[in-house]
């Protein structure tokens, strides 16, 4: 049985009950977490926005010249100056007395590493910009090189496991704490596995006057080594294991965290991805790194108080509940 309606598909596309800032036809890979995240962010933000987009996958796959997937004003910047560009856009709009919101977007490379200085400046100057970091934990666009966001022990082309190493030697940079230390009004983490939570955080951030920051965990099937249809499942396990805590920080203080109802072992998350397969060989150092990653997750659970003491309808099991007719909580 295949789907048919009497309404032509193109008409249907133009009568969808949600704002489409990012149109189909973009060149993202199958099951791309970032494409989904960008779609969710922009549809939650609504039409009155302008985007500043750092170099990276998102920029490449949405704007293969002379085409563009964007239906809102969109400007491309270099890797290193997205924060500066967004600052300028915001200042210009302010000078014109316009209330259009500016959203800056970048990958983890453009945010954690190369564009960090401009971002820090933007936050420090207090521009009214939402900065969204799509965190897929490596330079995926250029061929899966490690970034400072790549998790400990993950395999990338520049942190290959072998005789001398077990994947990336260093730890994932704690960017959210660094951002929060700028004392900005709102900084949060979100995951594509929890779209309602993600949209809530976008709206919450946009409602605030001043710099806000959102870090979205977005699986990269190619870079992480899993099938495209597993993107949500993998992202969900990252949250449920405690490795990627979903938290909100206001003025640097923890304001909320999604509690974990059933904490899943980190190994379950790691097993789903090829970039961690070397951790499952029968060797003492593999076992050690596995334990190390579990300890990192346990540490997150401890410092953010993630373990819920009773089932909550917005915890890691309840927050993605669906209902007949599509009613979601955000």
């Amino acid at each position: 049985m295949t789907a048919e309606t009497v309404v032509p598909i193109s008409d249907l596309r133009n009568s969808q009950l949600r704002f489409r800032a990012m149109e189909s036809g973009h060149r993202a890979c199958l099951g791309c977490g970032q494409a989904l995240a960008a779609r969710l962010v922009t549809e939650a933000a609504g039409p009155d926005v302008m985007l500043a987009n750092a170099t990276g996958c998102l920029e490449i796959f949405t704007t293969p010249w002379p085409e563009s997937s964007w239906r809102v004003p969109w400007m491309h910047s270099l890797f290193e100056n997205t924060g500066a560009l967004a600052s300028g856009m915001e200042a210009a709009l302010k000078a014109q007395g316009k209330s259009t919101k500016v959203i800056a977007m970048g990958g983890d490379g453009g945010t954690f590493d190369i564009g960090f200085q401009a971002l820090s400046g933007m936050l420090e100057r207090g521009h009214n910009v939402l900065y969204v970091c799509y965190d897929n934990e490596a330079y995926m666009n250029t061929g899966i090189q490690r970034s400072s966001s790549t998790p400990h022990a993950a395999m990338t082309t520049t942190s290959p496991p072998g005789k001398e190493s077990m994947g990336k030697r260093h730890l994932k940079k704690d960017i959210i704490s660094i951002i929060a230390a700028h004392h900005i009004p709102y900084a949060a983490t979100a995951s594509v596995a929890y779209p309602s939570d993600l949209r809530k955080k976008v709206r919450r951030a946009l409602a605030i006057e001043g710099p806000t920051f959102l870090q979205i965990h977005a699986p990269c099937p190619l870079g992480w080594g899993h099938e495209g249809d597993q993107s949500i499942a993998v992202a969900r396990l990252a949250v449920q294991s405690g490795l990627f805590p979903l938290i909100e920080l206001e003025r640097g203080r923890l304001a909320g965290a999604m509690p974990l109802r059933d904490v899943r072992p980190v190994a379950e998350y790691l097993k789903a991805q090829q970039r961690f397969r070397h951790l499952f060989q029968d060797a003492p150092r593999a076992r050690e790194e596995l334990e190390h990653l579990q300890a990192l997750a346990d540490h997150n659970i401890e410092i953010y108080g993630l373990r819920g003491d009773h089932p909550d309808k917005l915890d890691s099991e309840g927050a993605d509940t669906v209902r007949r007719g599509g009613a979601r909580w955000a």
Partner: protein
Amino acid sequence: MALILTRGGFSLPGTSINFKTGTWRVQKPFHRHLSAPCHSACPAGENAQAWIAKVDEGLFQQAWETLVAVNPLPAVTGRVCHHPCETACNRGQFDEAISINKIERFLGDEAIEQGWAYPVDKPRKSALRAAVVGAGPAGLSAAYHLVRLGYNVTLFDQLPEAGGVLRTALPAYRLPRLVLDAEVGRLLSVGIDFRPQHRLGRDMSLDELKAEYSAVFLGPGDQKSREWSIDGVVQRDLHVGIDLLKEWVAMGSVPQCTSAAIVGGGNTAIDLSRILKRAGVQEVHVITHQSLPGPGIPKEDAMTAIPREIDQALEEGVVIHPHRGIRRLILRGEKVVGVELVHMKKMDKGGKKQTIAFEGTETVLHVDQVIPAVGQEVDPFGMEDLLHHKHAFDADPWGRINGRDGVFVGGDARSGSSGTMSGAVGDGRRAAEAIDAYLREGLPPEEDTTPTIAFGQLNVNYYEHAPRQQEAVLPVDRRKGTEEIEGGLSASQVSLEAQRCFSCGTCFACDNCWTLCPDQAVLKTKELASDGSHYVFDFDYCKGCGLCAEECPCGFIAMEEEI
């Protein structure tokens, strides 16, 4: 529009729509309806998933109409059915099964209270005529479905009132007579010509019926108790279980004794044991070579009585001796003073199922009544030619008897029937469809072969745990007379139950595919799409990643190869 390309050229908004990423696809998603386990397991053929969906939408009357398109007696089945739907319910592997039986009861009761009309047109006067013999569950169902299909139906029963075994052998504490009267009365008024006190073989013959009507459905039930003895020995004051049960249901009295042993593991045995308790018999034993039903007990080894009824019997003080049989009646003169019990089990022996007694396990039980409740068979009176000395009719699931055109049979009288009320309702419906096909000289509709969706095909991440709504149950010390033991659920409880439904294998418009498609290749429709969902795939852009299929909570989306 001519586009002037300059250095630093720009792109027009949304122009990537010109690029059809659908050409990348090697597999594609499709909507796939699978049968919910509750549907597949229902002996009556009800699709509980479908009417629970209506309840969830708050459309109680529509839910009832969907239900009675299959089973016209929901207030009755909602009380007496052994609900295999709930045993099969996928939710049972998540937390607790949906209280399907109690939702059905609520809808049945609500229909009676609100006077909802059966969605059936009165047949035209010129329509063909069909005769239905026996106004039990099978006959009532057959008559109703024949009217639905447009036939004039005459329904005969030997008793003064319709209801059959529901009226003669079901204790009122399981099925209050007010409910039975109301539902059966409403059912008969859809245009069925009911002729009580007409017995086949006494007031009319099968040949007369065949001559007068275009088709005949027989739903006589099994009215005759099976022969019982222990190695040819029976006591003089033998009372048979089903007769005692009928006597109590009709008259409210049973022979007095102080202790009794009932032989058998079916509903008659359990009902009778509870009635004897109510009548003041101090010690009531049930002896069965089957085991108590429970987790891990294979179906063929478990007692055939409804587990809920067994539990209530145990609560009321009935003693059940599982895996036991009677080796010898202990008689003083011709009167029973006890039985010798022995461990027994049905086992495979040389490829045949045999009940084996284990030597050295004999015990003695002193009772002053031994009552067999070992099953019934068809009373051949008036149907001797058709039965050929068998205990039940040889007929296919459509009720067709080989070589007998125009005569159909269903319910307990059909060999291979499930022996349950809901099974009889299903038999009646299928026979009505077969009669319709026979009269139109066509083939009866094919059995629905839609595969059943398994628990593993759902994505339960998207469902929230919620406790099953509990009905009020009469405490043991107040179970004296005919007061109904189990209460029903309230409207709000029923709605909460309906919200718990997984909607296995059927789209419930949860928006998950629409929300999670990275390519906006899932589009939402205001109207229902032709496959019953609210979504269509835009294959111009669908890259075939499979996220929608993987994340579909109810297993409605699957992927197929596409080259």
